[in-house]
């Protein structure tokens, strides 16, 4: 079974048919089944998987911190040759203190809120036998090594006084302080902004060489894994289905699950209507539900009788590569789950009245006497049937803009929102029925957006009644039509949200938004709560509904791939100011605003090619006290001089309407980072 090649003589980590199960109501549910892998000295190994694949369980099992219901049910896990599963309490503590370190998602919760950073750092050295003074000195030195500019000040700070990115650097510093042989990173950048994520990944990459630690990097983010890791293992339903060198594995997968996953990713060159995404049908099986055959067979387009009855072995399929698939050579021929015909792209009529025009929109919050400009003089237009992608980090004003459109908050006096050329009243309660039904929303998280106590019939039916004014049989018929449009059936009518999968829930949310034939739908991170394989089906659904109904989207997303795939126009916000706006191709190809350029360079790509990443210094300034002049000057890598600090540049447009707010002349601005030629998988 153990077919892969070991990269070094004595691996730092070796999993030998490791199995873990959780007991749920007295029944044992296998979460990991006979997972074998090795991480060599100095190697970075990436473990990829969607939610429920068991990838985080690997990390917990390795350190013996599984929740009470979980237990290691078989196999061994060797760290530096020692079997973790059979260590006694003292040996386990020694291992945790010296050999293995771990960084989790959500650094804000991993740090003790009532102890200073210095004290928490010093603990690590104290266990290793340092005196109090020595521990403090070494802590400060360690902070400097994770690029903290004023370590002494940070030592005395409490976790809540630091930003998310800084907190994660503290956690990494604490982890590396003991010079561990193995560093386990479990989704270390999930929840951080793109530029911060890039910064943390860069730091990990640098430190890994500096400290010579082996890394086990666990993530659902294929791009992040591709950028950091030497080798990759793909986990599906608790089984390792493919393993190999990162570059080769992503360029030419040898398992149909990996192939399917990659086809779901909206990459450069893919666009709605032109080159639609593929999807993986179905959803992952419940742990232990597949008793025979390949675990992926039910969702695989290549599967046949053999796949459904015989569990394929983990077989060598090339230099350092292994795959648990009966047909590793036919993977590239995997039929599309979704047929690929191009959608009819609507003819654009530039003389048409925009669906939405902001001329302009401002919103100021009053927080205890101080004013926060969440949005300042943002002017935008959006044509019928088009998508406007709204890009920016947290605090940029994206959500404020969406809420103002929906009438959930009143913009500042002097703001004007025009819907089909007519002024839209600021608050929802002063809008007419037609205006209400014209602007609807699909939220990020369907668990929050769907009332958990209501059935699908009620959820969609209520929207039909309010927005389309239908009742009785007409309402029921319309509900069924809407479910049909989002590829659900009447079987789902009596279901409550918790009985549906994540993708199905989001379909219900989409159906609800379309209940009254809207003109504009705000899509607020519509896929970021979903797994990659489900996300592509929702993106295609949105694209298709748009082509059919000439609806316009305001798309808010931190995922540039998603924005690129759906958007006709892109607007970039920073601290409530519009920094750049234009046709999607113009914004992506450049010339770029320096901030846009940084955002584009921060987006990880599965090709593993990391262009020169543009690092942004410092943190996003507080909206309470925004920088003078150009709001971006405090972090701008292209700052020209004092003019940037004192005078705000105008939003200057070229002939095509591509507008950039920068003092630099256009020809000196960066260009075409996003479309740099990258090796696309065949």
């Amino acid at each position, binding site marked *: 079974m153990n077919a892969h090649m070991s990269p070094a003589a004595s691996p730092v980590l070796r999993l030998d048919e490791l199995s873990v199960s959780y007991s749920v109501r007295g029944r044992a549910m296998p979460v990991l089944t006979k997972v074998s892998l090795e991480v060599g000295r100095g190697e970075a190994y990436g473990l990829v998987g969607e939610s429920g694949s068991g990838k985080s369980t690997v990390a917990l099992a390795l*350190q013996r*911190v599984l929740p009470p219901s979980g237990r290691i049910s078989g196999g061994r896990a060797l760290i530096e040759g020692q079997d973790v599963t059979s260590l006694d309490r003292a040996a386990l503590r020694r*291992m945790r203190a010296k050999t293995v370190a771990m960084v*989790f998602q959500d650094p804000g919760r991993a740090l003790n*809120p009532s102890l200073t950073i210095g004290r928490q750092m010093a*603990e690590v050295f104290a266990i290793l036998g340092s005196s109090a003074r020595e521990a403090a000195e070494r802590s400060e030195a360690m902070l400097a090594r994770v690029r903290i500019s004023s370590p002494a000040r940070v030592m005395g700070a409490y976790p809540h006084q630091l930003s998310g990115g800084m907190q994660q650097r503290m956690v990494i510093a604490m982890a590396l302080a003991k010079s561990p042989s193995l560093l386990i990173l479990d989704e270390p950048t999930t929840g951080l902004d793109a530029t911060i994520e890039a910064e943390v990944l860069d730091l990990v990459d640098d430190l890994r060489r500096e400290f010579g630690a082996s890394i086990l990097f666990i993530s659902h983010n294929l791009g992040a894994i591709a950028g950091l890791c030497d080798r990759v293992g793909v986990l599906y339903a608790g089984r390792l289905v493919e393993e190999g060198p990162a570059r080769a594995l992503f360029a030419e997968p040898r398992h149909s699950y990996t192939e399917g996953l990659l086809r779901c990713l909206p990459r450069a060159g893919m666009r709605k209507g032109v080159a639609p995404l593929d999807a993986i049908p179905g959803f992952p099986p419940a742990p232990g539900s597949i008793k025979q055959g390949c675990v992926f067979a039910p969702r695989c387009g290549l599967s046949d009788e053999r796949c459904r009855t015989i569990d394929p072995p983990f077989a060598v399929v090339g230099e350092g590569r292994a795959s648990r698939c009966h047909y590793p050579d036919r993977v590239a021929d995997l039929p599309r789950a979704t047929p690929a015909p191009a959608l009819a792209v609507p003819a654009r009529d530039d003389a048409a009245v925009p669906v939405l025009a902001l001329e302009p929109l401002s919103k100021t919050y009053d927080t205890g006497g101080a004013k926060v400009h969440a949005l300042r003089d943002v002017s935008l237009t959006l044509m019928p049937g088009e998508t406007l992608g709204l890009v920016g980090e947290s605090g940029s004003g994206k959500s404020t803009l969406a809420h103002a459109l929906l009438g959930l908050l009143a913009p500042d006096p002097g703001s004007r929102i025009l819907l089909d050329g007519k002024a839209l009243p600021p608050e929802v309660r002063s809008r007419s029925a037609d205006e209400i039904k014209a602007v609807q929303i699909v939220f990020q998280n369907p668990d929050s957006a769907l009332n958990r106590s209501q059935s699908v019939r009620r959820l969609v039916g209520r929207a039909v009644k309010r927005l389309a004014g239908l009742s009785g049989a007409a309402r029921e018929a319309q509900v069924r039509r809407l479910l049909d449009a989002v590829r659900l059936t009447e079987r789902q009518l009596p279901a409550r949200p918790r009985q549906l999968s994540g993708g199905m829930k989001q379909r219900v949310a989409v159906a609800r938004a379309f209940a009254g034939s809207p003109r504009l739908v705000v899509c607020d991170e519509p896929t970021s709560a979903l797994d990659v394989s489900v996300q592509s089906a929702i993106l295609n659904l949105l694209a298709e509904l748009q082509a059919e109904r000439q609806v316009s989207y305001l798309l808010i997303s931190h995922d540039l791939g998603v924005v690129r795939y759906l958007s006709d126009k892109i607007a970039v916000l920073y601290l409530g100011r519009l920094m750049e706006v234009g046709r999607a191709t113009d914004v992506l190809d450049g010339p770029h605003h320096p901030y846009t350029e940084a955002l584009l360079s921060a987006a990880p790509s599965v090709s593993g090619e990391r262009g020169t990443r543009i690092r942004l210094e410092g943190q996003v300034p507080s909206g309470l006290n925004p920088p003078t002049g150009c709001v971006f000057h405090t972090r701008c890598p292209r700052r020209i001089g004092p003019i940037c600090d004192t005078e705000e540049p105008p939003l200057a447009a070229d002939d095509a309407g591509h507008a950039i707010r920068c003092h630099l002349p256009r020809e000196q601005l960066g260009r075409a980072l996003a479309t740099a030629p990258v090796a696309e998988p065949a």
Partner: protein
Amino acid sequence: MPHALGRFLAKRLGLSLLTLWLLSVVVFLGTQVLPGDPARAILGPLADPRAVAALNEQLGADRPPVEIYLSWVGGLLTGDMGQSYAYRSPVAPFIEAALVNSLKLAGMVFLIVVPIGIGAGVLAALHAGRPVDRAISVAGLSLTVIPEFVSSIALILVFAVILRWLPLSATWPPGAGPLTQMQHLLLPALPLVIVLFGYIARMTRAGTVEALSADYTRTAILKGLPWRTVLSRHVLRNALLPTITVIAAQMGYALGGLVVVESLFRYQGIGSLVLGAARAKDFAMLQAGVLVIGGFFVVTTLAADLATAMLDPRLRTGGRR
């Protein structure tokens, strides 16, 4: 950012003063406006109308309510709590003496219940889901709802009547030392201990369980720290902070429970004073007593909030960044 703490303190103090003011209005409404005609309430339905009018004039109840309220509050601010109708003398000395006695009893209660309650809560949390935990939880919960007069009777029967270990009377002989006083206070304190124990144990347990499952505790374990250190430095430090507020909130409750216990053990505290005033319809005494009890609660919660603020770095050093 020390001025964040200053602002928090100022705000908290302002809110407490506001609460005190509202409290005085509520008490005033309850004792002066709700009964309608105080003299009629005192003298009964069959009394001569002239006597009623005369008494109302004597009580000052024939004036407009706002005027009565203002003169009452004005008096309170200068330390004058009014005249007791039943004792025909100023209220203040009675309140003062009773408050001292009640504080002794309440102090005794907390001296016993705080360590036991917190200890049991932590113990239960450390064995969450196991028999020890179930036992502590169910016992605590069941004891909490037993009225003081019920447990008092059981305790009197066992300790004073059958075993004769403890004196039945809560009132100690004049000139008794602190130890004798505590001996006399033990029996009346126990019913309140029984009621408060479950509550404090439960809150402590909840806080500790939460801290035990927190990510920062896992971080501490993964640092390879000994379990004792993880527990004292990371778990309990974060778990016990909210418990302070809970305990303070129960101070006020304890004073309410004193009404029953003090009257049952014939102890001259604020509770029996209020009860006596209520029975005698001695409104001046009643409103002063109730206001003092409410005021005491406001002061203890304020103190607890301040203590929490001092100990919690998130409040002490201001908000994020």
